[in-house]
């Protein structure tokens, strides 16, 4: 099993882009399927955007720490912010009629739909995503 790679970024669009780009390069190089790459890219972006938006509350001075590794045919990514954490159970259902037209709130749903596993730390400020290559 490999060691974790770590990327730490400021809570800015440029930081997010840079981290996502280098991680996707690795994922592509590792030989993940097109479907798996799409899924990883989407879930990662949602997780990092959430970290910046909700975790670090748009404070550019706060960091987002991305750690990832490959374990056999699986890709594992953890995204941690400096926020106080949150309870994923409290997120409203974005597909409920009253929420369908809201321009936000779908990140967590997409992470769950596209990853094989989504786990939050007890503190709620770190999410771990796992995707099997198929």
């Amino acid at each position, binding site marked *: 099993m490999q060691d974790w790679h770590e990327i730490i970024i400021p809570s800015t*669009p440029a930081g997010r882009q840079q981290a996502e780009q280098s991680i996707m390069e690795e994922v592509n190089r590792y030989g993940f399927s097109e479907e798996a790459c799409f899924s990883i890219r989407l879930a990662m972006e949602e997780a990092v955007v959430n970290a910046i938006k909700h975790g670090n509350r748009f404070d550019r001075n706060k960091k987002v720490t991305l750690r990832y590794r490959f374990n056999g045919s699986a890709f594992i990514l953890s995204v941690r912010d400096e926020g106080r954490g949150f309870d994923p159970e409290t997120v409203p259902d974005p597909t409920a009629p009253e929420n*369908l037209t809201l321009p936000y709130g779908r990140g967590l749903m*997409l992470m769950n739909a596209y990853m094989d596993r989504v786990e939050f730390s007890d503190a709620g400020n770190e999410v771990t995503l796992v995707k099997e290559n198929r």
Partner: protein
Amino acid sequence: MTEPGGRQGRLAVTQKGGVHVVSFLDRKILDESNIVEIANELFDLVEKSKGIRLCLNFANVQYLSSTVLGKLITLNTRVNEDTGKLVLCTIRPQILEVFKITKLTKLFDICEDETTALSHFK
């Protein structure tokens, strides 16, 4: 009948029988880095043409995130407020899946191809 159109930065806009048909241009992807500019161009277009009949052709779109969905929802709201109509077309299966999972297939008028989309404006 196709009328001459124009390029506005990230969008190619043509008019076909009174319908504005918009394709996404130089990027094959819609992501956080360019969605703000693309959205602004679309909102400007809608602002300038009240009651617009707008068809968004997703042929070039290989990727999109939930932020993009949010912008499309806003676009849809604005078009409808001004009694216009928005139709999305030529969405590849992987992208359509994102719309399905988020149940946004209920909100948007989505057609398989441009010809079918144009017929929805009659």
